[in-house]
């Protein structure tokens, strides 16, 4: 078994073992073991990748290829570059933290973990695929368990949220499938066979008309999950209704699929389409950044705040991707990682607060720092990291994006960049408002004085997520060089 396929196999095996779990405890332990292995593998993968990179200069390394559907030339092709490796590491981190955070799920716990891990297997598969078809398959596998996860274990208007989320995402993926077919049927433009293989298609000169036609399909297909305005509305209600671990995984990982897909497919395979369409989508993405930030300011529910914040931050990823230059793209990828970790942290924290106080309304909470010092401290740190304080991953990401975007020779791009940058102030406003209201100030409810402190598994989850945030923030050099090296071939397509 090769090093990459294991990332799909291990979750699947975990699920199979889970099916035979007899009780809650076994289910937890099995999931934990499975995902710990996954985590260890992903750390190993990073080092293996760095080692491999020194001898291998292909775009993708660790590639494996097996024919699947011969007539459509569909292969099970896998391979990774730095970006996928990092995304895999992010995913395994978040899912492991998610397992920790979900320790207390007791209603249909087995099913919960099964769904969660199926979702994860989809995400892992997505990141290792270099075949459009398998990639799409994994993408849908990753999306659909959300319905059950939100619908069964969620809170609030969970049924509607789950429905809205699933329909919008699956609708988008339906649009995406048109785009993928469009690419596929133009992949023989230079002669040769039709293919789904990304690397193969990248060598082909797809006609400009086809690129212009299918770029929006692919872009919108992915951008919906990346919370592009105005298709972001599934996100706030979906996140608000989802159980903690699901919000973490969804905002932390699943939404990254959008940016990743745009980068990997829309930009790479349809470069001319990308160039022709950027202005239009840039306005949407840029607007989304500001709009999401203002949306977050006005929310009363903690999860909604974070959901809108995610809209804002992920629009920033899209915005950066549309800038079509190396620095901005590096920023987009670091932002994906950073936002993944931070938003997972936030959702975990919100979940912990909610689990104790049974409310997420900002107005009803207050002064929890005194009662829950660990959670409070992490909350403040996360908040500061989220608003882009240096020393944390968010800063590195945002600065890459801003500097990169500002290097664009076109005046319009620079002006829109300036507008987008101003979102950092609004971000500060809602983050500080949230932190200030719920953690600081006097205790809002005397009953809260008896709230239990953070448990070992909660601490484990939080620390697990916090460590990479700081590592990226303090030592970004190696990371960004690694990413840049992988971006290079993608960038060359645009020149």
């Amino acid at each position, binding site marked *: 078994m090769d090093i990459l396929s294991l990332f799909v196999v291990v979750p699947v095996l975990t699920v199979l073992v889970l099916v035979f779990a007899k009780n809650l405890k076994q289910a937890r332990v099995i999931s934990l073991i499975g995902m710990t292995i996954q985590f260890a593998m992903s750390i190993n993968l990073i080092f293996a990748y760095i080692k491999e990179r020194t001898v291998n200069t292909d775009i993708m390394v660790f590639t494996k290829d097996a024919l699947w559907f011969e007539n459509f030339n569909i292969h099970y092709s896998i391979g990774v570059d730095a970006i996928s490796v990092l995304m895999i590491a992010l995913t395994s981190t978040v899912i492991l933290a998610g397992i920790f955070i979900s320790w207390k799920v007791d209603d249909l716990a087995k099913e919960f973990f099964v769904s969660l891990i199926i979702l994860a297997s989809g995400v892992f598969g997505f990141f290792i695929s270099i075949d459009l078809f398998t990639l*799409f398959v*994994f993408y849908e596998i990753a999306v659909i368990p959300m319905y059950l996860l939100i*619908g069964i274990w969620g809170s609030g208007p969970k049924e509607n949220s789950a*429905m809205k989320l699933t329909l919008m995402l*699956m609708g988008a993926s339906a649009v995406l*499938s048109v785009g993928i077919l469009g690419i596929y049927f133009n992949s023989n433009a230079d002669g040769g066979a039709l293919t789904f293989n990304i690397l193969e298609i990248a060598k082909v000169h797809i006609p400009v008309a086809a690129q212009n036609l299918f770029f929006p399909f692919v872009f919108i297909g992915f951008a919906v999950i990346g919370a592009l305005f105005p298709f972001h509305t599934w996100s706030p209600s979906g996140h608000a209704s989802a159980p903690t671990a699901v919000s973490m995984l969804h905002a932390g990982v699943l939404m990254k699929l959008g940016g990743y897909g745009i980068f990997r497919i829309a930009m790479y395979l349809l470069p001319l389409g990308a160039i022709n369409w950027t202005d239009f989508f840039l306005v949407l993405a840029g607007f989304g950044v500001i709009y999401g930030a203002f949306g977050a300011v006005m929310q009363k529910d903690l999860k909604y705040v974070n959901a809108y914040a995610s809209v804002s931050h992920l629009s920033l990823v899209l915005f950066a991707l549309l800038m079509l230059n190396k620095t901005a793209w590096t920023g987009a990828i670091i932002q994906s990682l950073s936002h993944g970790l931070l938003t997972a942290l936030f959702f975990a924290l919100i979940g912990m607060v909610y689990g104790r106080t049974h409310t997420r309304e900002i107005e009803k909470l207050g002064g929890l720092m005194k009662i829950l010092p660990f959670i409070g401290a992490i909350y403040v740190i996360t908040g500061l990291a989220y608003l882009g304080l240096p020393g944390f991953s968010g800063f590195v990401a945002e600065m890459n994006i801003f500097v990169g975007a500002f290097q664009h020779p076109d005046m319009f791009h620079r002006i829109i960049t300036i507008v987008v940058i101003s979102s950092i102030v609004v971000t500060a406003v809602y983050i500080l408002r949230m932190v200030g209201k719920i953690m600081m100030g006097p205790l809002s409810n005397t009953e809260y004085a008896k709230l239990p402190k953070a448990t070992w598994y909660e601490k484990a989850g939080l620390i697990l997520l916090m460590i990479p945030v700081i590592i990226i923030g303090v030592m970004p050099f190696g990371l960004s060089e690694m990413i840049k090296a992988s971006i290079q071939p993608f960038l060359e397509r645009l020149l």
Partner: protein
Amino acid sequence: MNLESLLLMRSEIGLIIIILLLIIFEIFSNKKQKAAIIPFALILLAINTIIGFFPLQTGEIFGGMFRTNTLLHFFKTTLSLGVLILLLQSADWLKEKVVAENKATEFIILILSSLLGANFMISSGDFLMFYIGLELTTLPVAALVAYEASKRKSAEGAVKYILSSALASGTALFGISLLYATTGTLYFDTMATVLTSSHLAILGFIFFFSGLAFKISLVPFHFWTADVYEGAPINVASYLSVISKGAAVVILMILLFTVFKPLMPAWTKVIYIVTIATMFTGNLFALRQQNMKRFLAYSSIAQAGFILLGLLSVDQLGTATVIYFVAIYIFSNLGAFGVVQAISSATNKENMDDYEGLYRTNPKLSLVMMLALFSLAGIPPLAGFFGKFFLYAAAASKGYWVMVFIAVVNATISLYYYLLVIRAMFLRKGENPIPYFKSGNYMRLGLLIAVIGILVIGLYSPIYEYIYSFSNVFFN
């Protein structure tokens, strides 16, 4: 023509033998022995199905009235397997309800006759055989729809079915006569060579097409579907939606690709219009349904719309994809109907509301239902996904992008109502959920085969490759 060449009709002859054996059994058995009819019939059919999996050469007999090839044979075997699953799923119902009324053997005979008709229909080499096959497929089912003689809905459904289908076959017949007028032949092969595009031919085609479209439940020829499904016993509805429709789709495809190839510019437009209407109407009506049978009826209408996408690409790819999708559709729909059947025969409940909280009491049934519905909705890694994606690909390969786009929009709408069922079963707890019950072994086996089909047909690519390998039969 020698006797050996009769072996080309292997599956049909097998069916006739089974029917005869059953009639003999029915005549010479006493009341006690009657219960043995079910395993007896199942074993016979299973043997016939298994034999069917052995390959068969291509050929024509009876002066070209009957013809067969690998593709047809494969499809007939699939239909046979479908009927086997269907009978497995019906076994409990038969034992509890029908054997008591002393109508079990007849039930099986009628189903098998209809299957025989379907086989003849798709193997037919001229319009006469086609027409007789069509009638043989239809008429026994009409009797079956009325099978629950004590239920008004059943009788009402039967009336609607027989009258509507008589109209449809009459219209088709009129269409055939017009085609006959323009070409002077009823043989497919000959007609394909002499048919030329003219208003009369096109009108004849449209009349003829509407008769087949009736069987496939294409909009606007579909209205009987929901009412009949609702009235009919569940397994009969299942039969209608799976076997009868599947056979009709395949013969339609064959005719379009061979006989009506000269009319292609016209019939692609017809298909285009009908596809759009079918997908939208099926989906829009399915949204509101509470009765599971009606629900599945509309769902199967919408599915039929997707199948038509494959017809737009008149080539090997399209053929293979349509056959593939129909096979997947058979398994998925049988899974869904099987669960409805199981619940209905255990509790007499058929409404979506009744399914609330089903997962907590009957997890396995719910899972089967979920897999079946997700397969219908086209969610990977279930077979339906592959089927649908390849259908899109087939349409896209000929540049029908608008069509593909409409199809994906509809796929999303359809996901909505499939999720409604999932919602009832999984998300809701229900005030008085259906209590746990144990289905019979036949039912379990039937569902198991369906689930295996749903899981394997998609992921295991050699199946598609296999179908593809013989899908060029119409294009040499």
